[in-house]
């Protein structure tokens, strides 16, 4: 960073010198009434390193907004004090203020700048605390491993579960040690998982508590009783876990001292020594028995019970799963009958499904390992994994698979579409704006040398297929080229090579043998290399093509791009490399679009051809998000060589003006840098004659090709690909 460079020779500035410096950056917002004297005076009290740091950021911020820079200079010295001269922390504060400016405007940025004390408080808390975001994946995997329906983890101010998601606080910093904060997260997670797994939500709790004259008290008491039951179960099922979290259980353990509550604990203890399971039914019975006699307690870990929310979600899930299960059964029935062709008249029979639960341990022992058996026409069948998890989810909700579920869905019946059709990305823009179903990508701001968090809202959109004669026409037009391309590609296809003169191999190399026999008869040593061996060369390449679909490609360029793709697909299908084609365009960061033309594992079929034909010029060329998105996709693919090739016609740019020029180039460069770190090779094919000015900086000198004559593009693209991959 430049301030560090300045730093070595930076002397402490007095107020006047400081004001002079500030004036340079803040000129546009200063007037008669407002001078930089005040901020300068404050900043003059800091040491040279801090002063340099402050000035450096005043300069950067003033490039975004001069008023914000002024406010910053006024608040800087306070922030340094509040954050205990930790410049790293101060930088976090600045970045937060700038993000607030980016997202919500100057007013909110000022709020952050002027509240450095609040920031300091949460900052130091975060240092010892744990953020949910940091451990979300871990907790999700942990819960998934525990058992039952997989639950999502989200942040919320209230701790609860809706039977599909566990809601936890964003940050836990109540304990001085990081480990304890993490442990507390774990406690909350396991407790809420236990609500789902041990059947707290088996019945509609609203219906139950409404039978009492004080439903609020009844619900609270039931919550307490359930908490005791769940902790009791957790203690038995996960003894190691319980030992870890026992430090948080003081309040819980003190219940023993309370005579009334102790009877409940004794009840559970009794169940344990009898080795009996305790269920929600026990809690309901206890509720009836002790209603009005017990004072409710607020266990700190128990959160809230949202019976309404749960009920809504449960209803939807139950009906959805019933349909899906019956459809799965009809699929199973079809398959089984297909395998038994001799039973001709069987088609007219309704398949008779049956369902048995098989608990492998003693029924009353604490056990969560239930094995169910599904049988068709008296024969036990093993359903596929998805059906099994569906069954266990139904079991979790209802406790059994009811009779009516076991009727296979007939043909012509209502068929569910659970692909979340309301959330299809194509529909997003037809309604009010919302960010559901979109991907978010950070963007690199070279001025600040920081990422802007979740800056680009990216959607994958379909290219409407256009069924016309574009592909056959192109093939006809380039008949000779296609033929020679095929010949070239045929030659590099992963053929087997016969390696001669090997130490060992499949067969004897007669030439070598004759030679060495001759050698031997002359008294020389026998050569060891006497065998031939077949060596297979695996290409194992996954390549993604990213096609510029910006407005500037309209007309000729678009035509050439599409033709290139057709020829490329012809050549690649020859080669057997896996490839995908995506287009990109967009207007501003809020509307970044990736156009899907061909997925990696999709075959080159008529639909893909029609999509290539349907490629049209769209809006602007914001490149960073597209590269980040595709490199993310490529990262998940297993291949020896991964390649990302961009077809472009110019510099990155966007409607909002900011992306134009250096900012866009630097963001693209950064995204390519991230991509290369993932082990993906990047290459760019461009027709921009000025590409020499910026492409070497973005891609590296050897990683791009400039095609000056647009007519050459279709022929050259395949050719370049061939050279790149051999």
């Amino acid at each position, binding site marked *: 960073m430049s301030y560090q460079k300045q730093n070595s020779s930076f002397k402490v500035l007095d107020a006047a010198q400081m004001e002079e410096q500030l004036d340079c950056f803040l000129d546009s917002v200063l007037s008669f009434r407002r001078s930089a004297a005040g901020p300068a005076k404050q900043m003059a009290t800091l040491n040279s390193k801090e002063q340099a740091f402050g000035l450096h950021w005043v300069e950067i911020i003033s490039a975004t907004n001069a008023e914000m820079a002024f406010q910053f200079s006024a608040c800087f010295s306070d922030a340094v004090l509040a954050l205990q001269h930790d410049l790293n922390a101060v930088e976090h504060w600045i970045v937060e203020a700038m993000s607030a400016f980016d997202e919500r405007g100057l007013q909110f940025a000022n709020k952050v700048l002027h509240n450095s004390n609040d920031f300091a408080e949460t900052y130091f808390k975060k240092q010892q605390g744990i953020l949910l975001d940091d451990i979300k994946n*871990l907790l999700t*995997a942990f819960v*998934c491993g525990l*058992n039952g329906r997989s639950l999502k983890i989200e942040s919320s101010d209230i701790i609860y579960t809706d039977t599909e998601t566990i809601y936890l606080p964003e940050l836990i910093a109540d304990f001085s040690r990081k480990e304890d904060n993490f442990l507390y997260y774990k406690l909350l997670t396991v407790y809420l998982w236990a609500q789902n797994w041990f059947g707290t939500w088996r019945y509609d709790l609203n219906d139950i508590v409404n039978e009492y004259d004080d439903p609020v008290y009844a619900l609270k008491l039931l919550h307490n009783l359930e908490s005791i039951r769940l902790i009791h179960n957790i203690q038995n099922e996960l003894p190691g*876990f319980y030992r870890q979290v026992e430090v948080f259980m003081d309040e819980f353990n003190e219940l023993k001292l309370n005579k009334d509550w102790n009877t409940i604990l004794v009840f559970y203890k009794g169940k344990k020594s009898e080795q009996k399971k305790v269920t929600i039914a026990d809690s309901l019975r206890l509720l009836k028995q002790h209603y009005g006699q017990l004072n409710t307690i607020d266990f700190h870990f128990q959160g809230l019970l949202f019976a309404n929310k749960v009920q809504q979600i449960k209803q939807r899930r139950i009906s959805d799963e019933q349909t899906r299960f019956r459809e799965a059964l009809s699929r199973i029935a079809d398959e089984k009958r297909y395998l038994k062709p001799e039973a001709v008249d069987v088609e007219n029979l309704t398949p008779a499904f049956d369902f048995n639960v098989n608990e492998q*341990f003693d029924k009353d022992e604490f056990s969560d390992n239930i094995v169910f058996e599904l049988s068709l026409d008296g024969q036990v069948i093993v359903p596929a994994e998805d059906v099994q998890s569906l069954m266990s989810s139904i079991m979790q909700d209802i406790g059994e698979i009811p009779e009516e579920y076991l009727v296979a869905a007939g043909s012509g019946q209502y068929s569910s579409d659970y692909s979340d059709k309301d959330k299809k990305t194509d529909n997003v823009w037809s309604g009010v704006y919302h960010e559901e179903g979109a991907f978010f990508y950070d963007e690199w701001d070279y001025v600040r040398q920081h990422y802007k968090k979740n800056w680009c809202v990216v959607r994958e959109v379909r290219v409407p297929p256009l069924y016309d004669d574009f592909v056959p026409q192109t093939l006809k037009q380039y008949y000779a080229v296609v033929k020679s391309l095929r010949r070239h590609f045929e030659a590099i296809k992963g053929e087997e090579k016969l390696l001669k003169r090997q130490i060992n191999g499949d067969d004897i190399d007669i030439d070598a043998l004759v030679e060495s026999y001759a050698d031997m008869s002359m008294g020389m040593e026998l050569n060891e290399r006497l065998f031939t061996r077949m060596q297979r060369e695996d290409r194992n390449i996954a390549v993604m093509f990213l096609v510029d679909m910006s407005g500037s490609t309209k007309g000729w360029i678009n035509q050439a791009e599409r033709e290139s793709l057709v020829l490329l697909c012809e050549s690649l299908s020859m080669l057997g490399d896996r490839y995908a084609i995506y287009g990109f365009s967009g207007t501003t960061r809020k509307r970044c679009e990736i156009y899907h033309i061909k997925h990696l594992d999709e075959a080159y079929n008529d639909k893909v051809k029609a999509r290539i034909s349907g490629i049209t010029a769209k809006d602007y060329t914001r490149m960073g998000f597209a590269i980040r998105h595709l490199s993310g996709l490529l990262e998940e693919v297993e291949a020896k060589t991964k390649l990302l090739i961009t077809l472009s016609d110019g510099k990155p740019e966007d409607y909002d003006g900011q992306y134009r020029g250096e900012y866009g180039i630097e963001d693209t460069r950064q995204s390519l840098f991230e991509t290369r770190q993932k082990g993906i090779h990047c290459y760019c094919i461009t027709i921009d004659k000025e590409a020499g000015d910026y492409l070497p900086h973005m891609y590296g000198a050897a990683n791009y090709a400039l095609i000056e004559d647009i007519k050459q593009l279709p022929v050259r693209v395949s050719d370049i690909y061939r050279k790149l991959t051999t």
Partner: protein
Amino acid sequence: MDLLTQEILPEDYFIVDEPYYESVADEIQIFEAAYNNQLPVLLKGPTGCGKTRFMEHMAWRLKRPLITVSCHDDLTASDLVGRYLITSGETVWVDGPLAKSVRAGAICYLDEVVEARKDTTVVIHPLADDRRVLPMEKKGVVLQATDNFCLAMSYNPGYQSIMKDLKQSTRQRFVALEFDYPGIVLEQKILEIEAEINAELAKTLVKFAHMTRNLKGNGLDEGASTRLLVHAALLIKAGVNPVAACQSAIAQALTDDPEMLSAINELSASLF
């Protein structure tokens, strides 16, 4: 030293002591029936669920030598059938393991057969149908298998990719036996006997295995196999702390992803 004299004879492949194996269903009976009718057998199932142990057990039961070939992607047809070698100016034919088994009436077990090259698997075709012959192209002879010979192979449908799938023409020659991790009670018993641990520990380990199997498809490619459980059990028996044993024998064997590793470690810590 002359490598050729080091050759191990099929007679050395007899299994003397009974390998411990718990039957899950009627697989022993089916295998015996297939063997008696000279049908080749295909064992399907995830890694570490007992396929190889089953083969050893069957070889012991049928009193036949067991010749195992671990297939890899450079395994060629001549690696199986045999090849000419040159020694002191002369070419000498050396039988491959498959030819050896055919001659000796042994059980030839091709482990993880999908790993082998596709052209390699084709050489077993004439052996795997009613002809029961092994053409030795380079020698110009056809080897007829005796009634004792049995061909068996295994593959794991779990990590199948398009590149590594059995051809229909290959798989349709075999009697297929499907293996999976044993049920809870049985797996517990296997641990108790194989690793000689107490029932309580076996139960917890099996529970832990099920937790990791829940994670299959959610970050893990495979859950803990019975073999890994045995490893963990042996470590614990040797005095290693159970959580540490699970971490080394199971978690680290399953994944390299740090997040998944800590999730699995948290799971094992919850149980012990």
